[in-house]
């Protein structure tokens, strides 16, 4: 098999099923592609069941059900049931909108292991502004229903300039909801969030303050609630080990059936991503050009090619390398060894004045914005 050096397990341990790009919310930090409106042919129930079976056979254990909003799919319970029968550990990644207590119970009966609810903020006004709908109270109710039905309680809040100064209130809310696990995930700049980076990237000062608050809560709640705080990599000097390497453990299936090594990979042009409607998961994972393209180290150029750290970070994120340098085989410019790092640092430095940027226009993630954005690019 190609790339077996970096691919220790050789198995797609993680299957992320993006069931749909439809979503009742409109978060400007959404990492879905800008082209959501053009995804019309969603996979059928049978297609999804086949994907689940084939990936499980290749060793997949974790099943993420996401989107968009996965609750939009009427066949979600059926998909969950198949996942449970096959022995997956299944994670529903949801905004909570489209849920009611009955569905929380029905999903439990179908064998769902865990529900992760996302909040936009800890108060109604900001939450509902960022989500573009009135959903805050409903999210609180659903978070309580999840807890009451004995699921592990995981809350996710994407952190950015607009809500980072509320971090203490956000953490108080998670304590009050008795979360077991809290993910404070700094926005990653793909898709819609990349479009909105000027209004989303926090300043260094905001970041330092938020970090110290998050650390204090981590200490205080050590044995009760696990808090994971992911800092924005634009402020780092080494990139994240994106997806543990391309084609190493992650397999994403987009709503139309395209198979991707990470959920943002479709943003890299000139790669033909195979579709589960035409090809088996076995072929896609082991033999397709797309999954072998950046597997292992053979594709690397300098500085990564000769770098002693390449086995640690795999050269960072391919999508980010493409996005910021125009060439997906470059080092992720987050890395200070990248010749493009200075340009990124300058960009970040230009985004430090929070007040000046407060009024920057925000593009909400919805179908009509998606349509007009793709019209403009034609």
């Amino acid at each position, binding site marked *: 098999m190609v790339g077996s050096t970096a691919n220790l397990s050789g198995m797609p341990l993680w299957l992320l099923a993006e069931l749909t790009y439809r979503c009742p919310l409109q978060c400007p930090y959404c990492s879905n592609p800008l082209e959501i409106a053009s995804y019309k042919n969603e996979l059928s129930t049978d297609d999804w069941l086949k994907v689940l079976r084939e990936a499980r056979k290749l*060793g997949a*254990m974790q099943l993420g059900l996401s989107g968009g909003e996965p609750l939009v799919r009427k066949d979600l319970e059926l998909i969950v049931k198949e996942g449970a029968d096959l022995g997956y*550990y299944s994670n529903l990644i949801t905004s909570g909108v489209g849920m009611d207590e009955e569905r929380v119970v029905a999903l439990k009966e179908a064998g769902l*292991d*865990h529900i992760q609810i996302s909040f936009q903020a800890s108060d109604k006004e900001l939450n509902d502004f960022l989500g573009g709908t009135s959903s805050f109270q409903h999210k609180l109710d659903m978070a309580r229903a999840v807890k009451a039905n004995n699921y*592990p309680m995981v809350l996710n809040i994407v952190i950015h300039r607009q809500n980072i100064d509320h971090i203490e209130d956000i953490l108080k809310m998670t304590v009050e909801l008795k979360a077991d696990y809290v993910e404070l995930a700094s926005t990653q700049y793909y898709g819609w969030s990349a479009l909105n980076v000027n209004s989303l990237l926090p300043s260094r000062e905001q970041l330092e303050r938020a970090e110290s608050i998050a650390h204090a809560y981590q200490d205080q709640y050590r044995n009760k609630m*696990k808090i994971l705080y992911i800092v924005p990599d634009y402020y780092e000097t080494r990139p994240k080990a994106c997806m543990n390497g391309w084609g190493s453990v992650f397999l994403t299936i987009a709503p139309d059936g395209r198979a991707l090594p990470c959920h943002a990979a479709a943003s890299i042009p000139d790669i033909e991503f195979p579709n589960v409607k035409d090809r088996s998961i076995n072929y896609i994972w082991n033999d397709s050009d797309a999954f072998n393209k950046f597997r292992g180290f053979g594709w690397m150029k300098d500085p990564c090619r000769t770098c002693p750290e390449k086995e640690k970070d795999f050269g960072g994120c391919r999508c980010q390398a493409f996005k910021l340098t125009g060439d997906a085989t470059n080092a992720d410019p987050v890395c200070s060894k990248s010749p493009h790092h200075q340009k990124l640092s300058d960009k970040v430095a230009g985004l430090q004045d929070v007040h000046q940027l407060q009024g920057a226009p925000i593009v909400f993630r919805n179908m009509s914005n998606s349509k007009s954005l793709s019209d403009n690019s034609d």
Partner: protein
Amino acid sequence: MSEDRIPEINSFFRLQWEEAQNSFVLLYPEGMVKLSQSAGEILKRINGKSSVQDIIRDLQSAFPDVDLTSDVITFINQATENGWLNR
């Protein structure tokens, strides 16, 4: 820790035999741990009914050649520390 303690797996985690890994794994929200053979042998005997003493006795009859007492106790303490077992 007393050997009368009845350990219990934290409901946050699910223990499962994985053929493809040829080992037991612990699965939890968005994560997994592959267990060593001895960790798997101990954890699969933790059922919320057996005491530490029962578990040691059972393991001792499956693996009669070595004294496992201190290994089991160390592991159970560590697993509790990791949050895998209820405190």
